[in-house]
């Protein structure tokens, strides 16, 4: 009698253990879904991407993929910026189905400067003013039809915008 009881309790314990493991796996799965859920929430501020120091990491944090160069992005920026604190830059593209346009400065302490969401019906063209620490490549990333395209231009800065 005693033996049977202990056997029974062992099985019971096993069952409980398995249930526990299953629950853990279940919990483990949830964090995998979170980034996707965040990406789906379109109006969420991309905090992580704005913390990345270099350009490649920022693009990865923002989009999770890499961009290919495109000649369909037109960037309007000065060759030489006299004041790095205010550099007027605009970008226009003829690519269809544009969803976002982002500006990155590779030599800035934080590479990502601005990212604009372009809902359907909004013209894929943005003008803004950015800061540049020193002479650097400025990259425009356009997300269109789920793919990433980029255009680069070097802008020479005579007075940096990040110094005291």
């Amino acid at each position: 009698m005693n033996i049977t009881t202990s056997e029974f309790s062992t099985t019971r314990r096993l069952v409980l253990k398995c249930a526990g493991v299953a629950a853990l796996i279940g919990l483990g799965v949830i964090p995998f879904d979170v980034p996707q859920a965040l990406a789906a929430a379109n109006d969420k501020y991309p905090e992580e991407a704005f913390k990345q120091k270099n350009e490649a990491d920022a693009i990865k944090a923002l989009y999770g993929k890499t961009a290919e160069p495109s000649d369909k992005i037109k960037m309007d920026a000065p060759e030489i910026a006299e004041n790095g604190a205010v550099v007027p830059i605009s970008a226009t593209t003829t690519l269809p189905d544009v969803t976002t346009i982002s500006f990155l400065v590779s030599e800035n302490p934080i590479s990502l400067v601005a990212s604009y969401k372009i809902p359907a019906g909004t013209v894929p063209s943005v003008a803004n003013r950015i800061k540049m620490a020193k002479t650097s490549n400025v990259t425009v990333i356009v997300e269109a039809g789920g793919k990433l395209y980029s255009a680069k231009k070097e802008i020479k800065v005579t007075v940096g915008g990040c110094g005291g």
Partner: protein
Amino acid sequence: MASSIRVRATSNGDTTEVQALIQHPMDSGFVKDAKGEIIPPHFIQQLTFEYDGKPVFVADWGGGVSKDPYVKFAFKGGKKGDDLKVSWVDNKGATDTTTAKIQ
């Protein structure tokens, strides 16, 4: 207090062109003041333009956007006399909102 946001939205019948100028220090957190102390980051993180209850343009900004930021864009539709709602929130949680009439 006067609004920190100045917006001009003009419709040409087909598209509405929007220009906005906002008063904000946009401190990146990398600049030192005269005493050599770092000025803590203080910048607008998100700027939203809404027309007819829907966002037509959303800007996510970092500290690399110039002081008193300026932005220009255009969207299809938008009638003269209609409202365009503009709002921003910065990294300290401060916000401002204004409504402009499309001209």
